């Protein structure tokens, strides 16, 4: 009935109806039952009402990309179907209350509310829905019960019991629907971690020694802030909710100056306010790590949607010239690894380091076998009476002291300064200091994180992407099975690693794939190497590319 590989389930309903709970429960149940899972959600900028949806993929192989196809649609309100009409095919089964599904070809009317009421309260509709889907995917009933019990563990035992009853009712109903799903299970997947992008970034920050966060809440960056606050007691992390983004960024710079490893998590609009602090970080060579969660702009744009439109903002933020580093993870393991490395790089090179994510990546969930290893490196020195904060060195990196560690004093100045940090207007010192700061860029380029090539080494067509678009593109290219085609993904988008050039030169045709209207990364590559980057596949409607959509667009370029 369905593909034996990947089943695509979409749940759709109003904000506040509990789709999130079903997403959380079902992904856990599926993973614990031995399936690879992937989930991603899209939602309106409102607390109640409207229409939101979550896509959950259940698969026998790793799945890490959004796709358009819907095998089973679960509707929880009356406007779900209209909103998703262009993703519904004549093979889509539509499940929901009779009133919502009655006009559909493959309708599966289910009295979800009645089943919930039978247990005692319409509020159990979530658990009924999770149960139905668990039944359809042939999840292990004991696992289902345990996941529900864990999920509601903070509630009183009576409520836990009722939720389990509701889920089991749903489960039996799901089985009775006789929708055959033949997806192979793998017991090893049980031991995988099931996390989302925000958790990957915050876990990476902890692995990178983050012990300070100050931020001002803004979607979609807030989730990282929240995750670190949750972990603050276990990992000794100082947490400050700042009065504004300006305060947050300055506070984090103050924290680094005093010896902490600080993070600020924000989105484009909030980051716009931090640009003077980025300039300060550049001048005083005190690091800052910024998690910049992209969403569509300008201004407040589409607050809950996705885009890769802030590369230029990160690239050019701040006045004057100074080095910086920009990472852009494609998926969860990279989000973990690059965020951790951001702290090491910031510490070593004493520059602002950015981790650019987006709403799509942060809200995507899948199972990860293990996290990459990151070795934490520290780069501070004990000072003596002759300590010079801005000592001119061969590579431009001055030993960084912190106040109270050693007998010296640590003096940093946002005005141009000499080696001791004393204010100066000497043109000679100014020139030396600018050179010293910029010289660090050479070493950063040397130590850059290399681009990753997927596909055939002997390519004619090279598709280039960065950030979360890369995993969707990767899946689209794999479906294509064309041995003249490869993908080059950039985990580090600035500065460009030395090796990039050889990949570009080898291609007969270069095609950039990005989620913004101008092709900001393509422009950067063109500016850096002077090569032709005119072929661009771009999307900027607030939704991620789907695998199918990219497959079509790729075919058009070959």
């Amino acid at each position: 009935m369905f593909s034996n590989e990947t089943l695509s389930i979409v749940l759709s309903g109003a904000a506040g109806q509990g789709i999130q709970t079903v997403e959380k429960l079902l992904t856990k149940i599926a993973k614990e039952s031995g399936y690879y899972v992937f989930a991603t959600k899209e939602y309106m900028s409102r607390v109640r009402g409207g229409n939101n949806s979550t896509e959950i993929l259940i698969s026998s192989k790793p799945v890490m990309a959004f796709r358009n196809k819907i095998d089973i649609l679960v509707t929880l309100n009356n406007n779900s179907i209209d909103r998703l009409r262009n993703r519904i095919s004549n093979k889509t089964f539509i499940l929901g209350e009779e009133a919502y599904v009655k006009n559909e070809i493959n309708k599966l009317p289910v009295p979800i509310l009645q089943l919930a009421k039978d247990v005692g309260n319409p509020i159990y509709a979530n658990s009924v829905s999770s149960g139905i889907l668990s039944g359809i995917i042939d999840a292990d009933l004991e696992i289902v019960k345990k996941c529900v019990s864990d999920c509601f563990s903070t509630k009183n035992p009576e409520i836990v019991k009722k939720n389990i009853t509701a889920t089991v009712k749903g489960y039996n109903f799901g089985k009775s629907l006789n929708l055959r799903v033949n997806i192979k299970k793998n017991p090893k997947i049980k031991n995988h971690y099931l996390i989302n992008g925000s958790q990957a970034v915050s876990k990476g920050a902890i692995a990178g020694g983050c012990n300070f966060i100050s931020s001002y809440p803004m979607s979609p960056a807030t989730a990282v802030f929240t995750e670190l606050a949750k972990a603050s007691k276990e990992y000794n992390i100082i947490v400050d909710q700042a009065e504004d983004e300006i305060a947050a960024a300055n506070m984090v710079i103050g924290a680094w100056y005093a010896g902490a490893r600080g993070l600020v998590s924000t989105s484009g609009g909030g980051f716009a306010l931090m640009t003077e602090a980025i300039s300060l970080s550049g001048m005083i060579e005190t690091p800052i790590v910024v998690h910049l969660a992209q969403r569509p702009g300008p201004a407040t744009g589409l607050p809950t949607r996705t885009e890769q439109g802030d590369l230029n903002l990160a690239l050019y933020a701040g006045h004057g010239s100074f080095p910086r580093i920009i990472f852009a993870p494609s998926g969860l393991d990279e989000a973990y690894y690059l965020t951790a490395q951001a702290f090491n790089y910031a510490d070593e090179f004493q520059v602002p380091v950015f981790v650019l994510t987006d709403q799509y990546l942060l809200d995507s969930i899948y199972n990860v076998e293990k996290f990459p290893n990151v070795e934490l490196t520290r780069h501070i020195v004990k000072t003596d009476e002759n300590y010079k904060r801005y000592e001119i060195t061969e590579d431009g990196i001055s030993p960084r002291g912190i106040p109270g560690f050693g007998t010296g004093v640590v003096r940093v100045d946002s005005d141009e300064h000499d080696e001791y940090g004393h204010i100066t207007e000497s043109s000679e010192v100014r020139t030396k200091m600018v050179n010293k700061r910029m010289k660090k860029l050479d070493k950063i380029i040397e130590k850059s994180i290399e681009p990753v090539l997927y596909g055939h080494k002997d390519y004619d067509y090279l598709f280039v992407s960065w950030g979360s678009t890369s995993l969707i593109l990767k899946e689209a290219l794999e479906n294509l099975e064309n041995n003249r085609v490869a993908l080059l993904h950039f985990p580090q988008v600035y500065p460009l690693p030395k090796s990039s050039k050889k990949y570009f030169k080898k291609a007969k045709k270069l095609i950039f794939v990005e989620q913004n209207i101008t092709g900001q990364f393509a422009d950067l590559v063109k500016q850096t190497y002077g090569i032709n980057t005119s072929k661009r596949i771009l999307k900027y409607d607030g939704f991620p590319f789907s695998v199918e959509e990219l497959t079509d667009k790729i075919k058009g370029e070959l």
Partner: protein
Amino acid sequence: MLNVKLYDIPDSDIAWCPGCGNFGILNELKSALSELNLQPNQVVIVSGIGQAAKMPQYINVNMFNGLHGRTLPVATGIKLVNPSLTVIAESGDGCTYGEGGNHFIHTIRKNPNIVNLVHDNMIYGLTKGQASPTTPKGVVTSLQFDGVFVEPFNPISVAIALNASFVARTFMGYNDLTVDLIKQAIQHRGYALIDILQPCVTFNKFNTYQWYKENTYILPDDYDPTDKNAAFEIAMNTEKLALGVIYKNSEKAVYEDFQPKIKLF
């Protein structure tokens, strides 16, 4: 008492005008640090932008000279990370009450154990004489040439209204009072504001040394700074400006006490 010369920076090219009130504050701060036996590496002065913000350039302690108005978040960050440091946020009236107004409000709310010294000369000196948030109504400046027509900011009453834990005012011309207040502020646990009145001899021809002497008074010894209503009344009276500790509330929880201790070295 440490030798006050410990805080000198040899060959400093001081950028203030001759006769500037900043010189007095510089000496008073050095005296207070020496009387409290604070080693240079234990003290951090954070400043913003303006003539007052140049203060740490001329004192041999840890220095963070940052951005205009951003003194308080930086100082709070440093204190949270290393509570053993004596952290002094020091800048002018424009930096603290104008550009940094939001931070002023919220730092008082958070109550980190830092000292905030505000050099209040009621004018913008570095940009050559525009009105500051504290310039009195009617004063003619290079920009407000018909005289300032908006109400001045009253930092003392705002701080008391926000229940700041230590609120003081002084005139830099009174050396002993100022040294004593700085010492008290450093020893106080919690956010401590001292609004330090000072003349700007070049751009403020109204609020002169003489004017400050004539328009201020020192609070009597038996004044009780823990009485909030009395403090508020004194703060609202701008006919004559009270000097001394105007309000004190030692019960207020300190921000860093809610935070974990992190390992630094």
